[in-house]
């Protein structure tokens, strides 16, 4: 084995060890492996888009330029980076602000109206249209036809 090949093998082994040591060390220390920054950013953006800014009128945390929204985004980022799941982060904000914090209300209880009412109105409207169209297209039994002279 030439010296250059041996050096290459040692280098490759060192690189493999360096790559593996991060997650292994983290697991040995009982910590979850670090989440890549790009993943943390993407999940923070996605979560902040579903949560409402408490000091704005109908803006998400992601869209709001307010200081509180920025601080809440920073908190989401910290929680995601600490290994919390999306559901856990949402649950945290729900426990502090209640249902108000969700831009899209959960489909249960009184909130169900928001989901069922549009569908119910659509069905009712469709029925009204169907009923009227049927009436208009039915041959008029009663009354004289347009070309017929009036009786008497």
């Amino acid at each position: 084995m030439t010296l250059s090949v041996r050096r290459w093998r040692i280098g490759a082994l060192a690189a493999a060890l360096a790559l593996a040591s991060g997650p292994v060390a983290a697991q040995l220390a009982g910590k979850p492996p670090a989440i890549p920054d790009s993943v943390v950013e993407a999940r923070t953006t996605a979560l902040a888009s579903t949560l409402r800014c408490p000091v704005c009128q109908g803006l998400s945390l992601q869209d709001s330029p307010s200081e509180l929204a920025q601080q809440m985004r920073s908190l989401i980022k910290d929680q995601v980076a600490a290994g919390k799941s999306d559901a856990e982060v949402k649950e945290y904000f729900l426990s502090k602000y209640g249902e108000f914090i969700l831009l899209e209300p959960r489909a249960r209880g009184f909130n169900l109206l928001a989901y069922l009412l549009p569908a119910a109105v659509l069905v009712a409207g469709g029925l009204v249209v169907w009923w009227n169209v049927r009436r208009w297209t039915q041959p008029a039994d009663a009354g004289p036809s347009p070309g017929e002279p009036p009786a008497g």
Partner: protein
Amino acid sequence: MNWKRSAIAAAVAAPFIVLLAYGLTKDPREIPSPLPGRQAPDFALQVFLPGEGPMARNIGDTVSLAAMRGKVVVVNFWASWCLECITEHQDLSLAARQLAGKPVQFVGVLYNDVVDAGRQWVADRGGEAYPALNDPGARVAIDYGLYGVPETFVIDPAGKVAYKHTGPIWAGLLTAKVDSILAATPRTPGQ
């Protein structure tokens, strides 16, 4: 047949009218807090204004909620840029002085403000009867589900949020709330 059509139209419109009428009874700016009745979020914040009398703390000390277990704790979130905080400032200090002999601790938590501005604001108003704490990054404010200032939380001796007040609070209401909590709390030896 007109009466039949009118009846159908009324039957269709009635639920919407009821729904809208129900909506009018709600204040769209009011956010119902899930905190009252639950354990108050713990905090450990640094004092930047000491306050006066028995409720005073040293500047730089860390005040934690856990260390105040056994007392009624009044946590008031405020800021120097908040106009409504001026309205309640005298009342908060008055209530703190009136309750000073009882197992009660007031703390003010500065919300999204510069400490120097907070210091100047209190000095301009002749001081404060209780310590002021700094909350960098508004982490404690978010933990308390804050959406504006002023907001005041009354925490019972067991560490549960007994009452949340949004907007300026007044001395009579605050002392009545604290007294009712103290009256309902079984006294332990040494208190």
